Every structure is written in structure tokens, then in C-alpha cells.
């Protein structure tokens, strides 16, 4: 195994608790991750030492807060290998980032937006709203029985009408890893803009936006050990410079008169109002934290756990695993004759936290003819013993339910 999770568990005080008298086994990491002390301390230090409103201040605290906020932007840019920090726009989360892009694009009837069958509602509904507003149409890349996308169908759907292609790097429901580089290349060859939803990728894989060659990439801080309320839109400068602003307000303007306002440059053009300064700083601390352990070591550890879980669970009668064997992060399953909600309720009584339901992927659930699944998802602090507890809890619940 790549690294020893027992060494890092003490960084996460929440994990030490008992639920219903049993030790908490937190396997709902695809929904949100827990936060290490380094991140909590960074937030707190910000407020205890340098909190001030940023950018326009002349005083000492305003200078310190501005410098820390911009250093956080640099840190994110470095993590993504962006060409410049100004391409990193802070938002309130992945959903906010996707809505930003959907709001600033102008489409006309006949234009097409292409999304995949694996998408989270946050990467579907904004495009539906854009299509409704503009008369463009939404096309869907179908997926195979094993939860991977049909690449032939994808290529057949691409045309000169495709204005924007949006797909997730890793499926939050099934853990499917899409061949994002190839998909970006194909979409761009067809002349489409490309948005990659990295909400699930950010804690598990190395992201290099220059190598990826997408136009937009989004993620949320809370899924990568940072707080809620902070997210990122990375956008290619040449694309964003040509697009209009979205939210209006302080900071995003150059000059305001009642007759006419002119807008600021990137990244401020898209950051109206007081940003989540603390959140940005804590996100930078979270990236420092995972890089301190090593993203590759974390990924290897998580892969080991997810394989162990898949093996153990697939031995149970009538259990069906969704998604391909080389899934990352999330493991989804269903059990014939057992409702996922009942299973989730019972294993919660045993201290095991998993997510049940549609995982904000109703169209994907419909495609597989289910109303939901049970999903265990993994983070750097999970252990082999926790995987074994999960399997034993599911077995015990099945005895009660059948």
C-alpha cells in the first residue's frame, strides 16, 4: 500500500467520533470530504490575523488579506498548471462555475450543446436552461452497459453545430473515468468549446489544464478537503476575454456612471462583490495538504481500497456493481429486491455513512432502470478496516431485510 492512512487520521478530528455507539466509517466522500486541521487552522488564522476586505484597501490588513487571496489564486493556478493566475476565477462552487459559463454564452437556434449521459444535474440543468433561452438543442452522449461513454456515438454526435461540449472527468455516480484528453481533442477538432467538470477528479487525479486543452474546467473546494462555499472556474483567457460579464457589482467594474459602466479585466471581471476570501485561502491550504502527502500516493491508496470493496461486495448474493472495473473514487451497487434507502438506513445504524439515491444523476439512473443505488466513496483517510466494516454491515443489513 502506498501510504499509511492511520498517520493522517488524527488530522481529521471528526473521524474519531462514534455513531449510534459504533465508530464512524465515513464513506460519503464524493458528496463532501472532511477537512484536515491544516485547512481549519488556515481559515481561523485568516480571521485571527489578517481579515479585511480586499483589493481597494490602503491599510495594512487590507494589503495582507489581498496578498493572501491572490496567493491562493496563484496556488490554484499552479495546481492546475494554468498559464496564468488570472485564468483562475473564484466562484462559490462547481455548480456556480457551470452556471457562469452557461450564462455568458450566446447561442442561436440550430446550435447544439453536447453533454454526456453520466452528468450530474449541475452539468445538465444549466445547459437545458441555456438551450431553452436560446433555442439551441441539447444532445446526449450515450453510455454502455458498463457505465463508460460510447465514444463512437460521441464522435458521431459532434458536428459544426456543436457549440459547447460538457462532460465530467470522473462520474460521481459510478466512478467512471472518461478519456478526457481524447474527448477534448475530438470536440475541439469539431470547433466546439469544451467544459470539463472536475468536481470528482480534483481529489483523485492530477489535472493539467494546458495538457488537457479544454476551454473551461470547474470544481468545488469542499470535495477536495476545503470548506464549503468556494469553487473554481478555470477558463482560457482568449475565450473569457471575448465573453461578456455575468454578475454585476463591486470589483468587477472599471468605471461606473449611471449612463454606462465599463468592466474590469480577468479575473475580476467575473468576481463581483466581496469574494469568499477565507474560502480561497483555505482551498490553497487544502491543495498544500494533499500535495504534502502526494496526490499519486493518495490515488494509489484509494485504488487499493475501492478494489478491496468491489471484491468483497461482489461476493454477496444478487449484488450488482455499476460502472467499469477501473472506477475511481466511487463504487455504486444495487441488490436485487432490496431498496437502497433501507440498506443505507440500516448500515447507518452500524456507523457506516454511505450515500443512497440518485446522486443527482436521475437521467443516468433512468438509463439503468433503477431509482437509485448505494454508493461508497473513498478519501485519503479511509482504511482497509473500514472497507471490511462496510462489507460486514451490508451483509448484516441484508440478513435483516431478506
Amino acid at each position, binding site marked *: 500500500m502506498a501510504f499509511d492512512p492511520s498517520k493522517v487520521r488524527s488530522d481529521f478530528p471528526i473521524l474519531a467520533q462514534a455513531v*449510534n455507539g459504533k465508530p464512524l466509517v465515513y464513506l460519503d466522500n464524493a458528496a463532501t470530504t472532511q477537512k484536515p486541521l491544516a485547512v481549519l487552522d488556515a481559515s481561523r488564522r485568516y480571521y485571527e490575523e489578517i481579515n479585511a476586505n480586499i483589493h481597494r484597501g490602503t491599510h495594512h490588513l487590507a494589503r495582507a488579506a489581498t496578498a493572501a487571496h491572490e496567493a491562493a489564486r496563484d496556488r490554484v493556478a499552479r495546481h492546475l498548471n494554468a498559464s496564468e493566475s488570472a485564468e483562475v476565477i473564484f466562484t462559490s462552487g462547481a455548480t456556480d462555475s457551470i452556471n457562469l459559463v452557461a450564462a455568458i454564452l450566446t447561442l442561436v437556434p440550430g446550435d447544439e450543446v453536447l453533454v454526456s449521459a453520466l452528468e450530474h444535474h449541475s452539468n445538465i440543468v444549466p445547459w437545458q436552461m441555456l438551450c431553452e433561452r436560446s433555442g439551441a438543442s441539447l444532445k446526449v452522449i450515450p453510455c454502455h452497459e458498463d457505465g463508460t461513454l460510447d465514444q463512437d456515438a460521441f464522435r458521431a454526435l459532434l458536428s459544426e453545430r456543436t457549440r459547447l461540449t460538457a462532460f465530467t472527468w470522473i462520474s460521481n455516480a459510478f466512478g467512471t473515468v472518461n478519456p478526457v484528453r481524447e474527448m477534448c481533442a475530438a470536440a475541439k477538432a469539431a470547433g466546439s468549446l469544451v467544459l470539463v467538470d472536475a468536481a470528482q477528479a480534483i481529489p483523485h487525479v492530477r489535472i493539467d489544464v494546458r495538457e488537457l486543452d479544454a476551454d473551461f474546467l470547474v470544481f468545488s473546494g469542499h470535495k477536495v478537503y476545503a470548506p464549503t462555499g468556494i469553487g473554481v472556474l478555470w477558463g482560457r483567457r482568449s475565450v473569457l476575454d471575448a465573453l461578456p460579464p455575468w454578475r454585476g457589482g463591486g470589483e468587477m467594474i472599471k468605471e461606473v456612471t449611471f449612463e454606462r459602466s465599463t468592466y474590469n479585466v480577468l479575473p475580476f471581471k467575473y468576481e463581483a462583490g466581496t469574494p469568499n476570501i477565507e474560502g480561497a485561502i483555505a482551498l490553497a491550504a487544502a491543495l498544500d495538504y494533499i500535495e504534502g502527502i502526494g496526490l499519486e500516493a493518495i490515488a494509489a491508496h484509494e485504488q487499493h481500497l475501492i478494489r478491496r470493496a468491489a471484491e468483497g461486495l461482489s461476493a454477496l448474493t444478487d449484488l450488482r456493481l455499476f460502472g467499469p472495473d477501473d472506477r475511481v473514487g466511487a463504487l455504486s451497487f444495487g441488490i436485487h429486491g432490496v*431498496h*437502497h*434507502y*433501507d440498506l443505507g*438506513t*440500516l448500515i*447507518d*445504524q452500524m456507523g457506516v455513512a454511505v450515500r*443512497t*439515491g440518485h446522486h443527482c444523476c436521475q437521467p443516468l439512473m433512468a438509463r439503468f432502470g433503477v*431509482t*437509485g443505488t448505494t454508493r461508497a466513496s473513498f478519501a485519503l483517510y479511509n482504511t482497509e478496516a473500514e472497507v471490511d466494516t462496510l462489507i460486514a454491515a451490508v451483509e448484516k443489513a441484508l440478513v*435483516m*431485510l431478506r
Partner: protein
Amino acid sequence: MSIAEKQQQILEELSFLPGWQERYEYVIGLGRQLPAMSDKLKSSDKLIKGCQSQVWLDARAEDGHVRFSADSDSVITKGMIALFVRVLDGESPDAILSADLSFIDQTGLKEHLAPTRANALNLMATQMKQRALEIGAA
């Protein structure tokens, strides 16, 4: 037995079950015993859509009394509804409308339920009273 007495009986039965496991087995057992509704009856106007599980509720008049039937794709949810059915089935509309259904809070079961499910239970109680009101007024 009055509604209050039936509620008391349920609380007594549960008092013999100290652990979460026995209580859940009790609820699951109730869910199993409640007859399934026919697919014909499961029309969309009978459907109460929860966040995670679906519930169907039907009520009809029989000699001035209300007869309930209910179903769910989740057996635990179905067991919780069975508690209400056991208490209210066969009562008069008036008795149902004036019943205090907060006994469910004393079962200690609600604490184990997701807020959405707990809300679904409240919704369920409201719906049963609503149907009783319609039948009483008809």
C-alpha cells in the same frame, strides 16, 4: 380499541425492544405484513413522492368508516406507514381528524430517519387526515 389505546399498545410493544436492531426488525416486519397494493390502485394520484422512496396511499369509505391501504418500495418506509394504518384504519372520519398522531415521536424511530423521511412521515399523517376529511364531507 380507541386510537389512543392502539397507539399505547404500539409504544408498549416497542418498549420491549431495547436495541435499534430489534426496533428496525419490528418495523420491517410490519412493512412485510401490510398487504401490497395492487398495481391498478397504484395510480399517480395515490403517489406521494418522497426524496428517496415512493409511497402510495389509498382511502375508501366503508359503513361510515375509513379504510386505508398503503404501499412503498422501501420496506422500512412501509413499516412506518403500517404503524399509522394500524392506528387509523377502520376509524370514523371524525376520530381520525381529531387524533393526536404525535405518538410517532415517542417511538424513538424518527431520530434514526433522514429529515426527508421524517418529513415524509408528517406528510403521511397529514394526507391520511386529508383523505378522512374528504370522506367525511362526501
